[in-house]
């Protein structure tokens, strides 16, 4: 447990987000009979004791398959849902429980981008209004000034000519444009931290790189930090600084990008990496004996589900690689 304790003692100036033993349990619905007969309550342990920290300017990725808890963690961090247990620190201030006013102020510093670019916009609101709405909510700007700021941010995310898009409805734009607009909406409040929940998985392949590059450029220009959530490890490898692999609500491996990919320690990580399709025809792969070890791991696909994997104490898994911290 040493690495974590050491971190608690020194307050890192560089740390923008810290999450400690975060848990989110959803009570399972019981049938009427069960309610009458049993007193025990069952929970879906979506997030089961997750701890990590993110440094300023970093891109920290939560990676894993569906159901591992990564999206729920993202929502907990963005304070869209309350945690069952655990603490969240943002900019060295504990934000786990905040009053109404404080939550509103917090939302100006941390924003979230959702996975589905179509569903994340109100189909009956024009894009210009949707992107500018946060300014209204926080009484920052109205009328002409609001319009100016909306145009600015739209240009910034690559939606040009911005005027043309102000009066469009979401269904009149392409997926890529909508996701850019979603970023514009998230960034118009000038946050410092953005949670990006699978931002490109529902976008056409040919447009993904553009969005990812945009995110990287915005990080540089606007000094942002990202919590990037994805199931696509190939994208994770491209964009992240640090990666945490999640499984069944827990982090099973955490480290910086290079080490996770070149030397994965946890069996689940290894299984995950070996299952990812590589865009190279089999015959050519067989000829390049560059990554023999990865190929031979194919038989491991079924083995990660052995019970003891998730009975390993969390510290064991987390302590794997903390060099950069």
């Amino acid at each position, binding site marked *: 447990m040493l690495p974590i304790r050491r971190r608690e003692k020194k307050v890192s100036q560089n740390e923008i987000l810290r999450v400690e033993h975060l848990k989110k349990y959803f009570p399972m619905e019981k049938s009427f009979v069960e309610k009458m007969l049993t007193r025990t309550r069952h929970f879906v342990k979506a997030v089961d004791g997750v701890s990590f920290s993110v440094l300023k300017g970093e891109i920290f990725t939560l990676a894993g398959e569906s159901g591992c808890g990564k999206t729920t963690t993202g929502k907990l961090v*963005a304070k*869209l849902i309350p945690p069952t247990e655990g603490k969240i620190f943002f900019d060295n201030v504990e934000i786990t429980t905040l009053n109404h006013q404080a*939550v*509103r102020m917090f*939302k*100006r510093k941390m*924003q*979230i981008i*959702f*996975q*589905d670019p179509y*569903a*994340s*916009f*109100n*189909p*009956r*609101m024009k894009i210009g209004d949707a992107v500018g*709405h*946060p300014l209204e*909510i*926080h009484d920052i700007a109205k009328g002409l000034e609001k319009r100016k700021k909306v145009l600015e941010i739209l240009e910034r995310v690559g939606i040009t000519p911005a005027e043309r898009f102000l009066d469009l409805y979401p*269904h009149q734009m392409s997926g890529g444009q909508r996701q850019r607009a*979603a970023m514009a*909406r998230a960034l118009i*409040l000038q946050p410092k931290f953005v949670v990006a929940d699978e931002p490109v998985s529902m976008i056409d392949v040919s447009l993904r790189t553009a969005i990812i590059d945009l995110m990287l450029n915005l990080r540089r220009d606007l000094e942002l930090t990202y919590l990037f959530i994805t199931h696509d490890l190939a994208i994770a490898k491209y964009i992240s600084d640090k990666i945490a692999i999640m499984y069944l609500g827990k982090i099973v491996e955490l480290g910086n990008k290079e080490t996770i990919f070149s030397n994965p320690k946890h069996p689940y990580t290894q299984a995950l990496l070996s299952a990812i399709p590589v865009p190279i025809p089999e015959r050519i792969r067989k000829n390049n004996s560059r990554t023999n070890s990865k190929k031979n791991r194919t038989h491991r696909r079924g083995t990660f589900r052995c019970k003891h994997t998730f009975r390993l104490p969390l510290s064991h898994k987390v302590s794997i690689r903390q060099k950069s911290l």
Partner: protein
Amino acid sequence: MTVIGSVIVLSMILLTIIGPWISPHDPTAINVSPPPNPGPPSGAFPLGTNLLGQDMLSRVLCGGSTILQVALFSVLFCFIIGVPIGLLSSYAGGTLDKVFTLVMDSFYAFPGLVLAIAIAAIMGRGVVNMALSIAVVYIPSYFRIVRSQVLTIKELPYTEAAQAAGAGGGTILLRYILPNVLPSIVIVATVNFADAILTAAGLTFVGLGVGIDVPDWGWDLTQGRQLLPSGAWWVITFPGLMIILLALGFTLMGEGLSELLNPKLEQ
């Protein structure tokens, strides 16, 4: 379909407005035609006359206004009462929602006409009372539709996005949820209209409608039914046809609207 329906509805509305001017006789004047009454359709009285000697054509032309008014008011009441309750209850959730749902469901369990009759009997005659009693029968439907929509929309990403931006419940309900619920409400409203017309006719039929001095298709139905065994088929037929036509018009409008509004969203 919408077009046909709207045409029917609009021409009916037009009829009620200009009816009094174009009807050949005063619809309430009795014994306009010499006895014996009721008289069959003839040159002077193309749609015949009823027992009181009133000209059927005039009554048909002018008799729609009551029914239309009742239908309109009832839909209005439903909107004003049913929609806000539905919105607030389903958005807030919890015990409040459970209570309201229970209340609405119990109203829903009543057969519409029976409930309307019961309430109208208590409240007495008049357009507004009729409208209210019909509204009570229908509010649960509005509530249900609104509720099911709100429950869905509440979970959609764009509502979450609004919350993430810091929007409060009121803003979310008004600008994010209501505009998306409206299409379904409009469709219910048109079906509501159609049914309200039939129920209004039904209420008059059992004697709970407006007085005899106002020309009313429902009233003609009552009279016509009594006259039917004696062979005077025209008294019930023409007003009956008008009622059916009006209800059909609204139904078609509703069907067409639902087709229009939904596939667009899918596209």
